[in-house]
């Protein structure tokens, strides 16, 4: 698993990367009350705004960590946004992206580096 400085986690399986936010990020956001997901089939470029998350406190975005195509989204989240607080690193993944060039993955942090980053 890899981590971005925007507190996303990335899990690669072949050329498909699953994207979510870290438990730390979910704690910082507070109670999540709204999630808007991209449409399946959307072509995204790194740093495109893909997901809108609103907590009781504030709105924030998830940026595309890589270039690719959104191939699946977690349909349960819009109806059950609090899942992000309950299981950020598991059940509450946001989208899966089909990536042509995986090399940018190498630039992202591993778990040890991320844990140091949030210290």
């Amino acid at each position, binding site marked *: 698993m890899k981590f971005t400085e925007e507190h996303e986690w990335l899990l690669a399986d072949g050329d498909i990367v699953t994207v979510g936010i870290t438990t730390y990020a979910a704690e910082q956001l507070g*109670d999540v009350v709204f999630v808007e997901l991209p449409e399946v089939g959307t072509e995204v470029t790194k740093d495109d705004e893909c997901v*809108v998350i*609103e907590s*009781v*406190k504030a*709105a924030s975005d998830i940026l595309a960590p890589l270039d690719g195509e959104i191939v699946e989204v977690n349909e349960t989240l819009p109806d059950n946004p609090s899942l992000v607080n309950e299981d950020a690193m598991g059940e509450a993944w946001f989208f899966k992206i089909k990536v042509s060039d995986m090399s940018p993955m190498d630039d992202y942090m591993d778990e040890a580096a991320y844990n140091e980053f949030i210290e």
Partner: protein
Amino acid sequence: MTELETTPLNGLHRALGARMVGFAGYDMPVQFAGIMAEHAATRDRAGLFDVSHMGQVLLDGAGWTDVALAFEALVPMDVVGLGDGRQRYGLLTSDDGGIRDDLMFARMGESLFVVVNAACKADDIAYMRASLPDHVTLTEITDRALIALQGPAAEAALAPLCPAVTDMRFMDVIAADLSLGMGREEVPVWISRSGYTGEDGFEISVSASASEAVARKLLENDDVSPVGLGARDSLRLEAGLCLYGHDIGLDTTPVEAGLTWAIQKVRRAGGQREGGFPGAETILGQFADGAARKRVGLKPEGRAPMREGVELFETAEGGAPVGTITSGGFGPTVGGPVAMGYVPAALAAPGTQLFGELRGKRQPVTVAALPFVPANFKR
């Protein structure tokens, strides 16, 4: 950046694991267990809030009528007619009819006790000192904390410390002694039966030195949870209560803000003490002719919150904005987004369909009656 001030309960907040933020120059708890949980705890049982950042002021003069008449020159409220031990909501108005601040004022014997917003208190105090006649003295109280205890279990939580509170009605004020037990000295306090959540509850003005002991004593009750500024905001929003600097300010009048209920008949046209407050011409003119725009409740469709600054439109496409949201967010008790904002008077009727522009897309939002959650006061 200037150093944040702390309230006498700062150590308690930190001991309770609060997440702290800077607010109106103070280091304040934004949340403890989480905004949703704290919000629900207040609606279902009782929440304890530190509101010591607010300004507490005493006005004294040659007796009640003297003080009250002096204060009436600054606010469009009936101050003279306020009974001893009673509290009212008030507004400091500006010369052009805007709102300098909103406040609570109470008669305690011959004195007037005023609680003003934290962010406004320095300006308010300077303004009052400059405006009040010399024979009225203003004392800023800086050695007292202010603790709000709000929710249906508030009375039962406070009564063991002070049985007299069970006889208080909404907007009553008493001076009393709290008994903390264990042979500890009694704590003199001022208690009002009021708050900022739409729930029954109290605000307790207590010496800084005794405030943590009082807060800890109340928190010993399983029904009482510490609550931060986050839930304070969602609670007041659901209750349809204005947040100064957002829903009301120098650019809004009391009539536009829908606060005419706070201006008693005696100060309106034809009343015994008609006018005589800053902005009277504008404000009484709007009483007669109506205001061009009004503050309304707004219920966005779907789950996406519409927050402060979202522009409102009459149609799904095209046209210029007709209004703006002044506060909005997720209402935990409502279970969906709620907001307030200003719209033209012709579009202010509950049920009117409007559109709020969210991330470039216009989403339906309906004008709704306030409050979103019915008030639960002990009348």
